[in-house]
C-alpha cells in the first residue's frame, strides 16, 4: 500500500541536493576508463539525405544520414558512454565552467552528439548563412525550441539529468537531427570517428557504465575481448584502476543496428 508510506516522515532533502551538486569529496585515487567500439560486418554507407529546403545553401554539403557512422577501421562513432552512479566523487579538475558548443554548421548539428552537464551552459550557435531553430526534446527538463538566425546563438541550461539522450531537431530543415546527453556529473563520453572513448579522472573503484547508440538504443550485448557479454539495459559494472582501465575492443554485431 502506498498511502501509509506517503505519510512517513520526510527522510531527508539532502539526498536530492547531493544529486544536484557534484560532491568534491576526495577519492584516494583516480583512474580512467577507455575502450573502442568496433562494428562486426561490412561498414554501411550512410544514405544520402533529401535536402529540399534552402537547397542553394544546404544542398552543396552532400549531407548523409548520420544515425550510424562506421569508420574505415570499423570504429563506431557517436556511441554514448556514461557513469550511472548517482553519487560519485568528482575530481576537482573537472569542474565544468566553459559552455559546451552545439553548432548548426553546414545544415547539420556539429557535433552530432553533444554532452553537457546539469547547470552548465549549452551554447547553440548558428554558423550557417541561413536561419535555423533548435528544438531540444528533453523529457525531465522543459523542452526548448528557439529561433537562431544566421550567426546567432542561444543558451540552454538543464536543471535535471536525462535518463535517455534528448533529440535535437530543426523544424525548418527536417533532415537535421542531433542528440544532447545531459548528466549531472562530468563522467560521460561520446566515441569518435575511430570508435574510441576515454573517461578520465574517475574515482578508483567500481562504477556502473551505460552504453547507448541512437539507432540501437541501449546496447544489450557485445563481444568484449572475444567474449560475448550480455549487458542488461546497456549497463555494465567496471572496476576503475588507478593506472587506468582499458576495456579493449568492444565488438557489436551488425544486427544490433537493424
Amino acid at each position, binding site marked *: *500500500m*502506498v*498511502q501509509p*508510506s*506517503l*505519510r*512517513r*516522515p*520526510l*527522510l*531527508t*532533502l539532502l*539526498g*536530492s541536493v547531493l544529486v544536484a551538486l557534484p560532491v568534491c569529496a576526495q577519492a584516494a585515487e583516480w583512474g580512467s576508463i577507455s575502450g573502442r567500439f568496433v562494428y562486426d560486418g561490412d561498414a554501411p554507407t550512410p544514405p544520402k539525405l533529401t535536402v529540399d*529546403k534552402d537547397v542553394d545553401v544546404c544542398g552543396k554539403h552532400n549531407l548523409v544520414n548520420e544515425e550510424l557512422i562506421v569508420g574505415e577501421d570499423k570504429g563506431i562513432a557517436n556511441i554514448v558512454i556514461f557513469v550511472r552512479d548517482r553519487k560519485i566523487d568528482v575530481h576537482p579538475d573537472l569542474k565544468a565552467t566553459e559552455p559546451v558548443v552545439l553548432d548548426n554548421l553546414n545544415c547539420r548539428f556539429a557535433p552530432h552528439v553533444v554532452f553537457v552537464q546539469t547547470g552548465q551552459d549549452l551554447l547553440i550557435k548558428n554558423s550557417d*548563412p*541561413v*536561419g535555423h*531553430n*533548435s*528544438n531540444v*526534446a528533453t*523529457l*525531465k527538463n*522543459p*523542452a*526548448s*525550441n*528557439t*529561433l*537562431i*538566425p*544566421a550567426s*546567432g546563438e*542561444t543558451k540552454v541550461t538543464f536543471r*535535471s539529468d536525462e*535518463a*535517455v539522450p534528448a533529440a535535437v531537431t530543426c*523544424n*525548418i530543415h*527536417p533532415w537535421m537531427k542531433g542528440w544532447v546527453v545531459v548528466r549531472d556529473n562530468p563522467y560521460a563520453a561520446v566515441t569518435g570517428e575511430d570508435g574510441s572513448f576515454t573517461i578520465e579522472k574517475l574515482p578508483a573503484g567500481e562504477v556502473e557504465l551505460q552504453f547507448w547508440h541512437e539507432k540501437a538504443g541501449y546496447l544489450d550485448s557485445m563481444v568484449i575481448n572475444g567474449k560475448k557479454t550480455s549487458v*542488461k*539495459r546497456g549497463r555494465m559494472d567496471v572496476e576503475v584502476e588507478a593506472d587506468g582501465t582499458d576495456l579493449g575492443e568492444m565488438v557489436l554485431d551488425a*544486427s544490433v543496428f*537493424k
Partner: protein
Amino acid sequence: MNLPSATACKNNQPTTTAPRLSLACLGVCCLLPILAGCGQTPAATFRPNMVESAKQRLQPEQEQQVATILEAMFGTPDNPVVLPETGLDIAKLRLAAGPVHSDIVGRKNGLFREHCSHCHGVTGDGMGPTAAFLNPYPRDYRPGWFKFKSTERADKPTHADLVTILNNGIYGTSMPSFELLGETKVDALVEYVKYLSMRGEAELSLMRYYFELDDEDEGKLPETRDFLIEEILLPVAERWQEAEDAVIEVPEMPEVDLTESIAMGKELFYGNKANCVKCHGVTALGDGQANDYDDWNKVVKQWSAELQSAHETSTSDMTSEERSEHRAWLAKSDRVLAGDALDPRTIQPRNLRQAIYRGGRRPLDLYYRIHAGINGAPMPAAAGTLSPDEIWHIVNYIRSLPYEFDGELGADRSMVARDRL
C-alpha cells in the same frame, strides 16, 4: 439446449442454430447488467497511459504499481484527492469531478464529465468518444504542454490563461466557449484541467522511472515519501506554481507609422532572421512546411515507426524465453497503437490570410505567440533573437495579411485565400 455462455455470444459463429443463439444472447445480454446491480453504471476510472507503458515495456505488476501510487496521490475520477504540494483547491475539484449530480445544497457537480469529457476523455487524455472525428484532435493534458498562454514557451500557462481559453473557446477548432457557465464553474474546470495534467505528468514520470531503477530495486519503484513527493510530484507541481509569476513582459508597441511598421514586419517575415516564410510559406498560406508533426502526434508517430522496425527484427538470436517476451510485447504494442492512440496527423502552419488565430486575435496574443513560440508545436521562440520592436512589426504585418492585396492575384489566383490552398 443449454444456455450459451456470454463468451459463446461474443464468438457467435454462423451455425444453423444462429437465430436461436442470438435470441439467447439477447436474453443473456439484457439480464447481465440487471444481475450486476440493476442498471448501475460502473464507477469511472482513469485510463492508464498505455502508449508510454508499452514504450517502457512495463510489466503488468508495474502498471499496477503506477495505478496504485496514482490513486493514493490523486484519487479517482469520482473522488479526487489532492496532496498539499499540488497547491490545488479540493473544493473546486469536487465541483468539477464525479458524475453529473446535484450536491446537498442543490449545486450541480460533475462539470468536467458534463462539458469536457466527450472530447478530452475522463482522464484528460484527449481521447473522449468524439476525439477521432475532430481535427485538430482535442488536447491531451497528460504531457503538461499547453499552447496558448502568456508565459515563456516551456512554462505552464497561468490560471488566467486557461480561464481565457475556456471563456473564449479556440477559434478554428472544435473547442467552444464556456463563458455562459459563469466564473465559478469555469474556475472549477480550470482547476480540474490542472489536476488532470499534474496527474498525467506524474504518471509519465513514474512510468519512465522504471528504466532508471537499479538491479537491487527488482523492478519496483520505491514507495517512500521522499521519492514520491520530492522526485515525482514536486517537480510537476512547482512548475504550475511558478507560472503565475512568469508572465512575459510586453513593452509598448513602438511609436512608428503603421504602414512603416507593416513594411518592416514584412521584411522580417521573409528575411533570414525571423524566417517566418520557411513554414508559413511565401504566400503566407501556411504551405511552407507540410510534413511536420506536433509533439503529441510525434510521440505516436515515432513510436509506431519504432514498433514497425521491431516487427522486422530477426528473433533468431533470442532464447525461446526472450522470443516469447518479445512477441508478447509486440502484440500488446499493436493493441495499444490501435486502441489507445489516435492516428498521427501532420500539423499545418497557420494560414495567416484567414484572420483565424487559435490563441486569440488581440495584438498582444500574437506578440506572445511570436515571443515564446508555441509549446508542443514546431513554432520556435523568437525571444532573444528578435527585439520587442521587431516582434511588434511582425505582429502588425501579420494583422495586415488577411487584407493584403499585392496585385499578383489574377484569374488563376483566387482572391479567397481558402480557395488557393
